[in-house]
């Protein structure tokens, strides 16, 4: 068990930049160890200054390759860099194949760099909360820049985007029709658009599609999301992309959005924690997951309704003492 002394030991070592302690704390967070909460609280009490960049987009658009270029850009300026690469957990086996790191081999191994692969582990795991915790740990290690890779599709992965200050939405030539169909969905999260694989046919078309979609949407805080063409495999367009990313960070710091973004991320964390805690409580008290199948059958066959079912679950768990009589 981790006692007071070892919590302090963890904190001191992480603040010295020790990778082992940081890595172990990350696993404690993922495995839901209660001691990790106190560690995180202490780490948070010293606010960090890192720039948190999210890179999102469909599988195969070149996110990992792009991130390795972005990281190289910062390493060349002698900055400390952290990378969190999120991949989905298979809902069937609970396992996952985390393959982003392989695409970062050009930078992997640098002492100033810390790469951590992270599986989504199903919704009760709290994906945004874990990503945000990893960010805070890396920040405490002294990382100047923290880059998060996420597919950004589906509720859980989109929520990871809220952890970032600047979200780079990555698209490739040929995606125009798809973007048209998405519209609002992508506009919500993208602060900067990278049209990667600009060495392929159809770049100008996808840039035009993006311009149109951006033009139609209402943005807050006078930020007009720029579009940058990149060829990540060759390092083309990276300087311009970086200029835009850094400009965005300055912008949100000036207009106060930076703070509200951080608040949004923590709100999400609290919601996720509540959800996870709630499920745990239900399982502890009434073996909820075991019974779910049976509940579903009853509702399917019209033997009960959802409302009545929830009322009885709440009463059984003691969440609600008795039937409300004030109605």
């Amino acid at each position, binding site marked *: 068990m981790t006692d007071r002394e070892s919590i302090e030991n963890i904190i001191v070592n992480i603040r010295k930049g020790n990778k082992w302690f940081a890595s172990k704390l990350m696993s404690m967070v*993922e495995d839901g160890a209660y001691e990790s909460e106190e560690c995180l609280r202490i780490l948070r009490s010293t606010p960090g200054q890192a720039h948190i960049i999210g890179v999102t987009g469909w599988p195969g658009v070149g996110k990992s390759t792009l991130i390795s270029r972005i990281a190289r850009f910062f390493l060349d300026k002698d900055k400390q860099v952290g990378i969190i690469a999120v991949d989905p957990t298979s809902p069937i*086996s609970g396992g996952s194949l985390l393959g982003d790191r392989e695409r970062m081999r050009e930078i992997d191994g640098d002492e100033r760099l810390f790469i951590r692969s992270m599986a989504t582990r199903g919704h009760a795991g*709290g994906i945004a909360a874990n990503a945000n915790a990893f960010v805070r740990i890396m920040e405490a290690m002294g990382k100047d820049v923290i880059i998060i890779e996420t597919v950004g599709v589906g509720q859980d992965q989109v929520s990871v985007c809220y952890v970032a200050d600047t979200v780079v939405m990555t698209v490739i030539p040929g995606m125009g029709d798809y973007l048209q169909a998405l519209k609002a969905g992508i506009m919500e999260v993208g602060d900067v658009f990278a049209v990667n694989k600009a060495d392929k046919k159809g770049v100008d078309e996808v840039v035009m599609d993006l311009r149109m979609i951006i033009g139609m949407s209402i943005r807050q805080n006078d930020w007009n999301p720029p579009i940058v063409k990149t060829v990540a495999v060759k390092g083309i367009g990276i300087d311009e992309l970086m200029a835009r990313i850094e400009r965005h960070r300055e912008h949100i710091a000036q207009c106060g959005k930076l703070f509200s973004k951080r608040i949004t991320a923590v709100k999400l964390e609290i919601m996720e924690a509540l959800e996870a805690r709630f499920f*745990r409580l239900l399982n502890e008290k009434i073996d909820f997951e075991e019974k779910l199948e049976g509940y579903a059958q009853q509702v399917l066959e019209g033997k009960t309704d959802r409302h009545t079912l929830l009322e009885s679950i709440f009463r059984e768990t003691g969440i609600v003492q008795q039937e409300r009589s004030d109605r």
Partner: protein
Amino acid sequence: MKAAKKKRVILAKVGLDGHDNGIRIVSKWLMDGGYEVIYAGLYNTPERIIQMTIEENADAIGVSFLSGEHLFYAGKFKSLLGQKDMGHVKLIMGGVITPEDVEALKGLGVDAVFTPGTRRDVLLSKIDSIM
């Protein structure tokens, strides 16, 4: 749905041998077996894999060879793990390895050795048993 402890395994090829079919298949098997597999691909050095193991807090390292360098690398990995106080990390090796060398590897402290043709269920139950 509670957050369960997940076992994490790094799979990699070390050295100049450029065949990754085997290790790709094993990655898939382990994923289907419920493991979190960090796939590190080709041309790694033991030092880099150790660094990765620290960053990923992996429970095991799996490396495969075609080129007959397994004894050399087994010693190398074992000594690096020892130096870094990482004795808890399991070492798994695969490749074309003679029965005598399999014994030699086990003597060096390698936790499991797999040769071509190993069946999925055999591999999985062996790995489950050492983790």
